[in-house]
Every structure is written in C-alpha cells, then in structure tokens.
C-alpha cells in the first residue's frame, strides 16, 4: 500500500492507503475528499479533478501529457504544479505523495 495525502482547500488533511495502479482521483472519490468532482469519471475529458502537486513531489510525479495539458486549459487557476488527479497513477515511488485541492473546480 502507498500512502497518499490530500489537503482540502480549507486545510483539512485526508491521509489514505492507496493501491498501486489506481489513480489519485479514484482514491479521492473513495475517501470523499471535498473538491474533487471527477465529472467524466476519469476519462481525461473534463478538468474537475484538478490538484496541485506538493512542490516536494513535482519531479517524482512528472509532467502532464499533451492531452492532459489540453484539458488543464479548462481548470481554475492553473499553476506549474497543476495536474489532473485521474492521470496520476499510484506507484511505490509516490509513497507519501501530498496533493492540494484548489479553491474550485472550473
């Protein structure tokens, strides 16, 4: 199991054990993290699972692919560390990953 932490916009911290191979978004939905909507269900077809990857983790998580970068155009307040959480796969290297939920989704 890989440890994952979401910090909601109001500062509430959600710690969880995530299965490798699942997406960060799926874990947010399973644990009812507020502010992750995932309207399209993980198809990289909306931008409502937008998160900010903690600065300490951006290198490990990596850059969005072109399609995700396109979808990020629809997100609110996009920053260099913005990612769509449905496109981040949980893996050993991300054990301890921290992501922040933006003020709003779109």
């Amino acid at each position, binding site marked *: 199991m890989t440890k994952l932490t979401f910090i909601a916009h109001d500062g509430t911290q959600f710690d969880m054990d995530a299965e490798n191979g699942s997406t960060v978004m799926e874990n947010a939905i399973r644990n009812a993290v507020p502010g992750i909507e995932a*309207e*399209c269900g993980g*198809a990289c*077809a*909306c931008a409502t699972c937008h998160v900010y990857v903690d600065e300490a983790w951006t290198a490990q998580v990596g850059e969005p692919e*072109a399609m995700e*970068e*396109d979808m*990020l*155009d*629809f*997100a*609110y*307040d*996009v920053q260099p560390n913005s990612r769509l959480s449905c496109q981040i796969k949980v893996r050993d290297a991300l054990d301890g990953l921290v992501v922040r939920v933006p003020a*709003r989704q*779109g």
Partner: protein
Amino acid sequence: MTDITKTDVLIVGAGPVGLFAVFELGLFDMKCHLIDILDRPGGQCAELYPEKPIYDIPGWPSISAQGLVDKLLEQIAPFKPDFTYNRMVSSLEKLEDGSFRVTTDENEVFEAKVVVIAAGGGSFQPKRPPIPGIEPYEGKSVFYSVRRMEDFRGHDLVIVGGGDSALDWTLNLQPVAKSVTLVHRRPEFRAAPDSVNKMYAMQEMKQLDFQVGQVTGLTGADGQLSSAVIKGPDGDVEVPCTRMLPFFGLTMKLGPIAEWGLNLHENLIPVDTEKFQTSVPGIFAVGDINWYPGKLKLILSGFHEVALMAQAAKRIISPGERIVFQYTTSSTSLQKKLGVVD
C-alpha cells in the same frame, strides 16, 4: 401559429440510451423524435470521449464511444427516428387529453403522448470561465457563443481559450472588431494548426494581439466591460475590452428539466424499477439521469431500462391492446419491422 410536430414518443437526449430507446419503442411500432442540445447524436460518448474504448458493453470486448454511437444509429435506422439538434427543451406542459406539449429554446413545439427523458448528466452548456466577477457582464458584454457577428462590430474584443472555437472566432471576427486580443494560458493550442498559423501571421502584421496568460479581473459598469486584466508570465497587463468571448468548453447542467414539476432526488429523477416512470405518468426517465435504489450509471443499465420502459409506453399509446412478448431471433413480425425479412 407555430407548427406543431406530433410524434408518439418524444425523447429528450440523443445519447446511447436515448438512441436505444428508439429501438425498443420501434419494436412496438412507436414513432420517436429525439431532441438534443448538441449538434449530433451520441451525447457524452460523442462530446466527451469519442475515441475512448468502452469495455462493458455486452458482446463488445472493446468498442470506442463513437463506434458504439455509430452502431446504435445503424441499429435504429429501420425505425426512421427524427432528430432535432442544437435545441434545449425548455418547457413541458400536460394537455387535457393526457399528452404533453414540449417547447424548445427556439420555440419549436412538439406534442407526444409519451415523453422519455434520457438527458444523461443534463444538457451541455458553456462553462463559465474562472474569472472573478464575470456574472454581471454575461449576456451584456460577455457572450459564450456568437449569434450575430454584427454584435461585435467596432468593439475591443477579448477572446479567451485555445481550442477551435476560440481560434475560429479570432480569425472571423478580426475584420469586424475594432481590436482583437486572444488570451490563452500557454502558447500551445488545441485548435487546427492551420488556424493557429493564420493567427500568428495576423499577429505578425499587428492585426491582432495574442497574450499568453489567464484573465484574472474585469472592469466596467452596468454590465458593460471596459477592460480586462491578463496575468501573464511577465506580470499583469490591462487590455481594452468591451466584448469578451470565453471558450472554456462545456459542462452538464440539469437545466429547465428541474422546473417540469417532477420529483427530484439530488438533481436526478426518481423512477420506479418496473416502468422507469417518473412521478408524472407518461413521463419516463432512463439512463444516467434517473435514480432508484441500486442505480448504476452504466450504459448497459440504461439499455435494460428502455426495454422495460417501452412496454409501459406501449400501454399508454395503445391502451387495451394486448402486448405480445417476442424475440427478434424468432418473430417474423419483429424481423419485418427491422427490415431483415420481406
């Protein structure tokens, strides 16, 4: 007097479940008319993820969303459904004879004995961009679509977005507007490369301005914009702006269905699981938009729902007529309707 289009069953939404409803209703000789807010059939399958594979359609280990829509259209073709696209159903009223009158946002009028709501996540509507304080300007100086190009003549126009809509309107409105500023978060575009090249060429000739950044603020009064603040890599820039066209894609909203007097459950329409009928007899709800205990938002669940719904719809449209349950595999009469035997 507006022309009234009459049909047996009016289906709101032409996504996969609305399309398959045509098949099940057609087997019972009911004629269908579908209305959809998009410009083509397929709903979310066509709009959100046409190229993505779906793995849980029985009999299809993998099929693309658009592929499924194409197959459904082929399957329902024998029943010759009518389609009205680019329309939102705005109102619904029950008539004295028990049928329903449905009016679209362009004032077309339909009458049907049965209404089937297959509206999925609701109607696709332009997404409001993440610009604080934009609401008072909407419909006055901020528009989400171009109805008439003349409305932009002589204006300082700011277009926001990086897709085809943004680029097409940048190019088309440039000769009409006083000035055009295109704003996009990054220098890469989702739009057709040809449009992007044309845009850069026009920028080169100073016919328009392209700014990399995000619109963070608006100034103006009484709904009339005067300028927009763009936060770019080199800080804030204020540009003159008396008209704005943001293109931030589509989102789904329940829309006017909420005002049709149906019982709702968290923006979904509760139905029974025998007929998939709503709280109003004669109005059914199928697919993602309905709710019942154990509901799963799966296309295959919607297919099951329409089969049962069709039986109930037939009882309304042909009261007293005996409904014979038949298989398409063995029934010559069903095969005739499908056009597979003479």
